């Protein structure tokens, strides 16, 4: 995961990037950057340009909001339930037994490195 780096405030209140206000971009340009923007992968100026466009445009924000909502559902609630403690313990035993069988069958040495 990329660290957030410097202690800048949330993007919506950060002053425009170096060089003055971001130049206006059109809807196609903004939407092309939709997932790069939501993923935090855009460098400073392109990110600021998208933010400015979303403040000024009526048509694009719903698309961004919907994609963000789907991403939140994936991140927060859609992952299959992790193994319960007893399931994980049983899996751990099973894996250890399989590793031991493999080691006994002549796998490369697994310690002493």
């Amino acid at each position: 995961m990329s660290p957030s780096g410097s202690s800048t405030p949330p993007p919506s209140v950060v002053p425009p990037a170096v060089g003055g206000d971001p130049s206006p971009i059109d809807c196609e340009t903004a939407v092309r950057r939709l997932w790069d923007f939501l993923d935090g992968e855009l460098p400073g100026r392109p990110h600021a340009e998208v933010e400015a466009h979303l403040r000024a445009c009526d048509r694009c924000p719903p698309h961004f909001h919907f994609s963000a909502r789907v991403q939140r559902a994936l991140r927060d609630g859609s992952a299959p339930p992790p193994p319960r403690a007893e399931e994980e313990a049983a899996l751990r035993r099973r894996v250890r037994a399989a590793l031991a069988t493999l080691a006994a069958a002549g796998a490369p040495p697994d310690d002493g490195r």
Partner: protein
Amino acid sequence: MDRTPDSRPVDAPEVAHAPSADAPSADAPTAFERLMLPHLGDVARFARALARDPGAADDLVQETYLQALRGWHTFRPDADPRRWLFTICRNAFLRGARRELRYVAAPDDDPELEALAAAREHGAALRDGTARQLDHLDLAPAVARALAALPAHYRVAVVLVDVEGCDYAEAAAQLGTAVGTVRSRLFRGRRLLQQALYAHARDLGVVRDGGAGVARPDDAPAPGAARREGPPVEALPPPRGASPLRPQP
């Protein structure tokens, strides 16, 4: 504790075995296990997101650890064990999934076309009322089902970024590909997920159509009406890890 060549783990690990304080236990973890088994929970969670059911996921976890043991001599001492295990898990998954792959090579040269298409499709969903159906749903179960139905290559990319929280560079390292390929698979996968959500919403409810049974182009909302469909811009979640002063790559 070192394993001597003669020591073997006891055959019934479920039997309670109180290790003696003085003698090395035959059940003692090896150096490999001491380094790798602490990540079993994370690997199991990752496997469950990749595989279609818990049984297949557990098999994948076992295969991952066996592959890791076979390749233990290649593991660099300074490497990250969790990332190494995830890479092995992903490889094992894709090998096993080869038969079921419905992976159509997506042109890598412009993944942003997927974003444009997704926005067009969302616009259509807004116009025909499908998006309104989704407003009232808890998306998580439908998204989980749609994720499980994605072709394997797309699913892995979406799991790495949207479930595991990798950034593009980390996902590219996990997949052993370039960032461009990550974007291509990720964007296509996300677009497919959204299409599945629209299909689910249409299956669930009656699409509002003004009573005529067919969504008509002139039912499109006036330009200003689109604003009602979503919360204000300020409510967008801060992009993960974003700093507007981030240096250019």
